[in-house]
């Protein structure tokens, strides 16, 4: 009886998992196969595709650098703290995920735009952010950072305090302990967070359109180029979508491999 129930459970798990995988596979496959390959290749040669790819790769790399530099210390601090105020900050940091991107873009304009709360002071010293590549980076950091910070908090929280104590007692300073013990142990979690955040930054659309506008070669990222191409030529939109998927795959697979390198003894991440 038990064995039958076990088998049924396994089958159920398999079927439900397969359904989800099939759902993704069919949707992505439709993008790749519904257009004749010749038309897709011709569309890829469109100068707008190359320009958008360049803008996307440059801005998302810059965004993720900012996210990692600012997010790692924050994640560490939140991961070590046990008090209530830290929990509140942690929840507050998830809120940007609940804000519709277009509203996030509006918020960025109202904060950093020409008439914005901060933007008007920036304007006086001659700094103007809206409609620049910097605005694209602001939008991407806003939507992507929460994914990384959340993953960093969990990664750091899972590290055994005892190990750090041992390192310190063996004479390692705080910096050395962090670099030699904490970072390698936290690496798989951090890299997963980095992958999620990067994918989110690459796909960012609404906030960018609102705050950075849509200008080819300057602020037009791949998702904006997709939306623009939909106005005229579905094949170009499809080609752009495939380029976006390719870039995301390279980044996600690359980060996986890095995570594996970081923890060779732990086997597969």
């Amino acid at each position, binding site marked *: 009886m038990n064995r039958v129930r076990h088998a049924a459970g396994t089958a159920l798990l398999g079927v439900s998992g397969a359904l989800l995988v099939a759902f993704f596979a069919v949707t992505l496959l439709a993008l790749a196969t519904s257009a004749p390959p010749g038309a897709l290749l011709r569309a890829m040669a469109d100068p707008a595709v190359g320009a958008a790819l360049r803008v996307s790769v440059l801005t998302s790399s810059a965004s993720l650098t900012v996210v990692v530099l600012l997010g790692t210390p924050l994640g560490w601090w939140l991961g070590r703290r046990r008090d209530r105020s830290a929990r509140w900050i942690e929840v507050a940091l998830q809120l940007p995920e609940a804000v519709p991107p277009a509203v996030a873009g509006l918020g960025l304009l109202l904060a950093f735009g020409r008439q914005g709360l901060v933007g008007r002071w920036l304007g006086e010293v001659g700094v103007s952010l809206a*409609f620049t590549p910097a605005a694209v980076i602001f939008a991407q950091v806003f939507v992507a950072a929460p994914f990384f910070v959340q993953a960093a908090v969990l990664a750091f929280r899972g590290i055994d305090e005892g190990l750090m104590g041992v390192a310190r007692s063996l004479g390692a300073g705080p910096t050395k302990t962090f670099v030699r013990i904490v970072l390698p142990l936290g690496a798989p979690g951090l890299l997963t967070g980095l992958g999620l955040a990067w994918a989110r930054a690459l796909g960012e659309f609404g906030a960018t359109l609102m705050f950075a506008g849509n200008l080819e070669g300057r602020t037009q990222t791949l998702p904006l180029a997709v939306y623009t191409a939909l106005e005229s030529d579905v094949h170009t939109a499809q080609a752009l979508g495939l380029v976006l998927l390719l870039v995301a795959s390279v980044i996600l697979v690359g980060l996986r491999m890095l995570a594996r390198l970081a923890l060779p003894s732990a086997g597969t991440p």
Partner: protein
Amino acid sequence: MRGTWLAAVFFCAAAAVAGSASFAAYPPRTLTVLAAASLKEAFTRIATAFETAHPGVKVNLVFAGTQELRIQIEHGARADLIAAADGKHTAALEAAGLVERPWIFALNTPVLIVPVGNKAGLRGLEDLPRAERLVVGVPEVPIGSYTLQILDRATTAYGAKYRQQVDKNVVSRELNVRQIVAKVALGEADAAFAYATDARAFAGKVTVLPIPDRLNVVASYPAAILRQAPQPALARAWIEWLLSDAGRGVLIESGFRVPDLSAAGPAPRSPP
């Protein structure tokens, strides 16, 4: 006790019969109208009046960019009527045999808008090179293609240097006219091209600078009945309403101009 039950059953049965009888008198019908985003204010008002005049009719309005509406129809959207901001797309749908002959029911005028306060100090189209941040539509959307036509004419009038400077000032090419107007209303753009109707919807936030008639173009709004329309008679009634004095009054109040009906040809056939 038993009596109460019987009474309740009887009451329910009576209600059911009465209900179905009223359904028979006014079968609920839905008219689905696909309309360009710039028609939002006008069509919302017209729908209320239309529903009052046609008891049992529910008007379902779907607003999107004209190009999106065309894609929806090409992919078999179940709707009765399309009201577009651009004759190009309805002509393509007619050529594909998807809609009947389109009727021009409204005209819209492109205008130049600046934020209230007009910090850049623009007085008209000739000052456009002074707008540091200019927002326009992508050429594929109607307002973007009208903008190009106006700029071409302005270039002829003001010279090639004018055009170079204007092109340099473009900071964003937006996909719909409401996004364009929003950026001017927020003061982030110094100037933009939009329709007179949008400028009216954002009165108080944007100031209109008229474009000289000789340099301007006119946007025509065609309405066409879908060949697969589930409610063709209602769709015809809707077009007749648009062409009636009441309908034209609402359109004019929203900032549209209306075509000279004698030039537009006969009104669509009444329902048989």
